[in-house]
């Protein structure tokens, strides 16, 4: 089955800023891999896989009890940019 891939759209969904050349390369590789992967379509089955766990665990919960949070300084020390106890990023949208 020929696999049609809008690679730029996929890269955008995945937030990967790739060059046109890189996109072309990945598109070709994905095409080959997906052609192989498309063999899953040879299976005739309407089985569902609600629970992939081999032990079919269900209803795994924790009780509503507080645990200690992390030390803020230790956490913020790993961040590229912080201010007054906050993480900092540039604005969400391009300024007009």
């Amino acid at each position: 089955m020929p696999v049609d891939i809008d690679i730029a759209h996929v890269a955008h969904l995945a937030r990967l800023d790739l060059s046109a050349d890189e996109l072309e390369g990945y598109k070709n590789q994905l095409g080959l891999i997906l052609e192989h992967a498309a063999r899953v379509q040879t299976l005739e089955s309407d089985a569902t896989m609600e629970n992939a766990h081999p032990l079919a665990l269900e209803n795994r919960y924790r009780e509503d009890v507080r645990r200690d949070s992390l030390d803020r300084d230790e956490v913020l020390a790993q961040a590229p940019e912080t201010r007054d106890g906050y993480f900092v990023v540039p604005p969400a949208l391009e300024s007009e």
Partner: protein
Amino acid sequence: MNWEPVIGIEVHVELMTESKMFCGCAVEFGAEPNTNICPTCLGLPGALPVPNRKAIESIMAIGLALNCEVMPRSVFHRKNYFYADLPKNYQISQFDVPVCVNGYLDIEVDGDTRRVSLERAHMEEDTGKSTHIGEGGRIHSATSTLLDFNRSGVPLVEIVSRPDIYSAAEARAYASGLRAVVAELGVSDARLEEGSIRFDANISIRPRGDETLGTKVEIKNMNSFRSLERAVDYEIQRQIEVVESGGEVVMETRHWDEESGVTRSMRTKEGSSDYRYFMDPDLAPMAMSPQWIDEVRATLPELPGDRLQRYIEGGLEPALAGVLSGSNKEMRDLHDSAVAEGADTREAANWVTGEVTSWARRHGSEDSEIPLTGADLAGLLRLIGEGTVSSSAAKEVLDGVLGGEGSPAEVARSRDLIQITDTSVLESAVDDVLAHNPKAVADYSSGEHKIVGFLVGQVMAATQGKADPRAVNELIRSRLDGS
């Protein structure tokens, strides 16, 4: 053309659990930024979510209160989208098997009851909070964004109505009805101003009589019932104008601007979003057994709609039933227990919503315990009914009881408020007043019968309110008519 608006509302309710949805961090409003965070709610590499049982039971309670079916099995999905305040860049939410489906909420609009049908209620986690800073303070001119993840992972229940709301007033009634239910259940702070309840509205218009739905527009950022109503109203008018001037409504998300009272298009980069939902492999399926559902059902308090019904069936006229039903739990319990002690429901309701409530308001203790038992209130009403105290003196008795002076009978006695029932004492008081008011007596004789009220007041004053005004009235009339 006659247009019919069709509205669906999505409500996000933050649950008031001790700890977050998938980790042990505190759920706490107003904490220092980034102090209630851990590997899980901060999306650190390697961290895993474990669901909070209390949150699951809370959504089951909400579903049951909203007449939903609790699904026997349910699973969590990942909703994938990138956003700075979403630490994992996916939200753990639910997709095609939510915890609750198919419910309804009855709402009152202009005295009519309408049933709004619900599609589902599902469990998810909240995001962190972004604060945009820079000149102007507006999103478009922001120079940077500050991120606080304290709210990240707080349990959220999303309640989705069907497109079954047909006016801004209904939208408001639905939202406030839903808030009342959630508040009654005690599962959420239900504080709009703190964002613990948030609304999104999907609005479309169609020619009245049409069956098909028009193009819908989603409105976000309404943080009060009033702004919800205004935003919906505005958007309906906007769409009608667009269509009537030959245009077409565009499917989009719009932002309600409270200050200028308009909805504005939100610029989005992606055409349609593709959330790539798939079952979260970190979480086991949930199985809601009939026993578990029954256990949760047994914990449900009486809900506002059921309570109103009960009061009306108990003999209260709808208006008074509505006021009582809307009072706080202290007041309702006081009424209910007074009735259980033999008081008349109407009298008890009048006293509770009148004198007792205003006393509580004066003493700033509306939400705290009222120092009055149902037996006290029933006792007071009995003193009035038996004629032992007058209804005006009864207010003083109440004041004394609330002030901790003793039972109604004790206060009536100690404050000397027991009604004069001895006829000879009354007769002499009446005669005294008539003798001192010859002008009033003359007015009466010339046909001005209203003057009796003045004379009754004089007698009441002379007896310090302890006379029965009805008996005094009768006595005066018989004296004047007979002489």
